[in-house]
């Protein structure tokens, strides 16, 4: 009896150990990046690789970097774009989801299926014409060009619609009987009770907008409007302050770009996982 128990404990222990090792492997590169931000630049690429170095920790990289780039500015730009995009996405797509669930109109189901089908259109196909259109609309080289094209999201419609479907019809019907307008019903009744779905969409949209780099690369030209990824790629490709990559500064920028999302992830773990897997499990 005791042997069986010991055997089980051993098996459990091995599983736990393997799992822990895998977790460390997953996290180690990110940890290295964050620790390297505080190493003097010449030690970042040192061999053998290590998490600390002589002169650790130091804020030297941060100091030099802030002389070359307006870090706070880029950070603020990223925050602005991410927040505005998230707010806009919540608004536009919850309105569509409301129409798709609580209102009745001809072609309703067809519209939903068409919306889902549009998820197949790869961004790269529309990228060039979108560039042309954005220029023509005067949205080039400003945040409008980043935010406005990103507002429609079949994923958001899907997630929010799923949640709206779980609300009994009586809620809306009794409000209608009381004379409330549909808009009022959406904003004052339905949305407040749909917070879980909205949180999932918010967190996923925020992460996407924060990390987005290709489209901002195409749309933004002025240095003042750089978001974190743009500043980072300029640094990494040696565009600022000479030809040589100053790895210390690259690490600082990488860390600053990553930390907000990691912190957000720690707080909203469940929403992140639900959002990222719902996109996959929607079938």
């Amino acid at each position: 009896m005791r042997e069986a128990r010991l055997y089980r404990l051993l098996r459990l222990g091995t599983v736990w150990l393997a799992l822990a090792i895998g977790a460390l492997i997953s996290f180690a590169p990110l940890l290295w990046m964050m620790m390297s931000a505080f190493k003097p630049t010449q030690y970042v690429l040192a061999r053998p690789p290590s998490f600390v170095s002589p002169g650790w920790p130091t804020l030297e990289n941060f100091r030099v970097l802030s002389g070359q780039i307006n870090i706070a500015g880029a950070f603020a730009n990223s925050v602005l774009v991410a927040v505005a995009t998230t707010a806009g996405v919540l608004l536009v797509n919850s309105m569509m989801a409301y129409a798709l669930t609580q209102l009745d109109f001809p072609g309703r189901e067809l519209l939903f299926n068409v919306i889902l089908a549009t998820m197949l259109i790869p961004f790269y196909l529309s990228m060039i014409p979108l560039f042309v259109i954005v220029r023509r609309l005067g949205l080039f080289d400003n945040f409008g060009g980043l935010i406005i094209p990103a507002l429609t999201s079949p994923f958001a419609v899907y997630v929010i619609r799923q949640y709206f479907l779980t609300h009994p019809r009586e809620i809306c019907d009794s409000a209608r009987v009381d004379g409330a307008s549909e808009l009022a019903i959406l904003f004052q009744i339905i949305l407040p009770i749909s917070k879980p779905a909205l949180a999932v969409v918010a967190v996923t949209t925020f992460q996407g907008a924060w990390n987005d780099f290709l489209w901002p690369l195409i749309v933004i030209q002025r240095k003042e409007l750089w978001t974190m990824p743009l500043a980072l790629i300029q640094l990494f490709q040696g565009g600022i302050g000479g030809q040589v990559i100053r790895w210390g500064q690259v690490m600082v920028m990488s860390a600053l770009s990553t930390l907000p999302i990691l912190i957000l992830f720690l707080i909203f773990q469940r929403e992140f996982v639900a959002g990222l897997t719902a996109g996959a499990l929607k079938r």
Partner: protein
Amino acid sequence: MAAYAITSSRRNLSPEGRGRLRQLRMRQLRIASVFILPYLVLFAIFGLYPAALAVWMSFFNWPPLGDVQFIGIDNFRELLRDEVVGKSIVNIAYFLVMDITGILLLSTLIALAMSVQLPFKGLVRVMYFSPAVTSMLVVSIIWSWIFSPNGALNYLIAMVGIREQKWLLDPDLVMPSLALMNIWRGAGFYAVIILAGLQSISRELYEAAAIDGSSGWQSFWKITIPLLMPTIELVIVLMTIWGFLLFTEPYVMTRGGPLDRSMTLAYHLYRQSFQFWRMGYGAAIGIVLLVMAFAIALIERRVIGQRVDF
């Protein structure tokens, strides 16, 4: 509201009943339009129109100087002869084989491990998921170092006595390296998806099998794997579609080299459009991507559609 009940018995209505029905539907549409218009307008401008324009553009030559000329299907003829396109597709296929195998193996193992009762689940999950929430740009930068001559990988393999490799600079190793990086990034993420699939398998099946005398291994092969198939197929489809869209890694880390061995369709598109300013040709490449996405989705529907039959 009684109004909604009318719509189902359209056939039995008198002419004036039908008129009233039409009025009702118009009214429904009017109310709904407030809600669907923002989305539709935005989508028409920034979703539909660009896609249609892309198809249109692919039939033209859009030089940086001079006029736009209509050239019919010349862009597509060039596509068929373009070596880079062929190489890109081969690269992507090669990448996908390694990527999918690696991720399926690892994430299934991880998911199985996670399904056991363990302490610190939350922390472990955060660590496994963290690569997936980090931006691809940052991941590419970190791995540029890991793959560098003095980087972590060469250091680690030296410890087990393997010679230093050139990784991203080696034409034969560049795609496997990118696949490795992707496996690292995706294993934890897909593990959570597979875990959800695992947990949806009813315990009773296992219990019934145990009563019938099935061993752990047998249960695994006869119950777990078959019922996990839809999830696994889903993972494969997702990875395939994302694989075709591979862009950041070649852009940041390899510029498609060495010798075009890490070239992908998306990067080729970008380069043709924004470096060589051949936007018509770039649009044609984009259409190839669209066609492939549709093809994969169709194949997937057929394959998964057959499995879900219990």
